[in-house]
């Protein structure tokens, strides 16, 4: 089982990238599980064709100890097992602790043993903002981290913080940085800026995803590009990234 955490600044396109990679991997014959780690609980919406699934934390709140695996894991496009950790309403509660509670529940219900996925993708909110958001890269969870960024200053700042966190956890034997995915925003010198960032982080660019209208068109259909426009160049780009991840060429 390969377990990968995908981090990046909020709004940079992590969920779109993750869902497309999940769809691409499933089309290549892999059993995939995608775990959204964001209180918004919208990581898997494209795989679920727009349907918002109940989050782990909502189900714990409602059903207490009676929560079953079927209450929190749903099958999306290509048989991808979709899970959303969920979290509190903005302004109250503790979102980081929420992720820990959701992960503990997945363990308790033996989700990984039950579904036996080839790949688990953790789609994690924005930045490593507290202990809870680092949970996906702790011991026993993701072995590799992929950072999604554009060439924009704030996206790179968030990416830099994630690199710092990974570096900090290195002495604990946790996840390593597998590479950078450039989700292009068509800013000046973007390729050069992101390449320089990757070099400074001691990493490399795994894939450059061009900015393309077709992504928005697929989202308007509540579909991933891989599902809605399987023969498009954008779909081929996601499939190439998926292939690199599975071949292990993502390792730096």
């Amino acid at each position: 089982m390969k377990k990968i955490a995908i981090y990046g600044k909020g709004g940079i396109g992590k969920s779109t990238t993750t869902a497309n990679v999940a769809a691409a991997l499933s089309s290549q014959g892999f059993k995939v599980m995608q775990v959204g780690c964001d209180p918004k609980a919208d990581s898997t919406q494209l795989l679920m064709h727009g349907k918002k699934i109940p989050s782990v934390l909502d189900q714990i709140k409602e059903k207490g100890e009676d929560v079953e695996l079927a209450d929190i894991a749903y099958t999306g496009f290509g048989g991808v097992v979709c899970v959303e950790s969920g979290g509190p309403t903005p302004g109250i509660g503790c979102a980081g602790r929420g992720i820990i509670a959701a992960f503990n529940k997945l363990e308790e219900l033996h989700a990984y043993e039950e579904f036996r996925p080839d790949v688990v993708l953790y789609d994690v909110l924005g930045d490593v903002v507290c202990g809870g958001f680092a949970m996906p890269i702790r011991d026993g969870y993701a072995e590799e981290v992929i950072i999604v960024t554009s060439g924009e200053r704030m996206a790179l700042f968030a990416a830099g913080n994630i690199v710092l966190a990974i570096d900090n956890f290195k002495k604990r034997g946790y996840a390593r940085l597998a590479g950078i995915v450039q989700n292009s925003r068509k800013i000046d010198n973007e390729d050069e800026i992101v390449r320089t960032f990757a070099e400074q982080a001691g990493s490399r660019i795994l894939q450059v995803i061009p900015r393309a209208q077709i992504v928005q068109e697929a989202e308007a259909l509540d579909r991933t590009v891989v599902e809605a426009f399987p023969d498009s160049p954008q779909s081929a780009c996601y499939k190439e990234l998926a292939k690199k991840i599975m071949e292990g060429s993502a390792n730096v």
Partner: protein
Amino acid sequence: MARLSILLPPFSPDYSGAASALFDMNCLTVLHDASGCTGNFIGFDEPRWYGTHVPVYCSGLREIDAIMGDDEKLIAKVLSAQKSINADMIAIVGSPVPMIVGCDVAGIAHEIEERAGVPSFGFDTTGLRYYDYGVSIACDALVKRFVRPCAKSSEPSVNILGADAIDFGITPTIASLRRLLAESGYSCSAVMPCGLSLDTLTNMTAAHVNLVVSRSGLSTAKLLHDRYGIPYLVGLPYGEKCIPEYFGMLEQVRRSGVNAVYGISSDNSSLRKAENGGGVLVIGEQVACNAIRMAVEKDGEPGPVTVGCLFGMEQELCRPYDVNLADEKEISEAINDNRYSTVFADPFLKWLLRNVSKRFFPIPHYGVSSKIHAREAADSIDGGFDAYLASLENRDATNL
């Protein structure tokens, strides 16, 4: 608010169980808390604390450390302490505040081990579970880390698992069990966790059978069964009349290699549901309660005996109609249930009893009433429980 305790104190929590399990291991144990949890452990949950020099410390967690996640401050303190203590191992034991802020105690322990060069453990205890869970995870961690395959003992041999200080307090029950084992031709490879040493721990696989004497030992027994094929017997022989049957079962487990539970199968009335005031309710830790049930039945109790589990219930240790009592409300409802005319439980639970005509037999448990009733707890093995029952029969139990 369903789980609110109005009359009863909180029972011993998981962090106390973990710290207690490491008490004899020359382990530098650090409770990661502001000091309240450490106070609970040394003041109320660990009967061996006073008069010892076991290195148990409080991390002195403060608000700013929790907010900033200043793990390095804790690591530096531990490394500094280890320089002077030179412990054989180090443990960081979690508590509610680190749990809330998502402190990575396992990761901290990993770093400490790298830097101190001694085996280190991080236990994700939260204070939200009972002591038995803490004992279990600590013992499991010790087994995973230190136990190695070794040649079987030439004579019949057992390990005693779940012999923790919170379940057995200051009673000589485990010593009595060891004496009975010796008289029956069994040597004892290891007693875990009370009295455990690195040497006996490492050579645990020399034993033929694991004897599980409390629920806290069941997880470790399963681990040793899965890894090394050692079968286990769960149970205790309380009351002299139980001893032949118990040792017969032990011998059967040794010869067959098939796990067994003493105290749940019976051909007498106790497989019936208690009705109309004729029943007996035994409340407490599940394995001890099963043992009391067997002793009471062998003593001639005609009515059904039901076990009420105070710290959690294992289905495999149950008879039909046994109940899990998850909070004070459930305990109170059970203890006042008209189906039961007799109750065995910790003396503190008597505060919940509304019907004074019920017979209440006090069975102190350190995880409930701590040192307040510790000296009243009996040696329950080798006739001790029979003497206890006889002494109680001669006086008005409700006035105890």
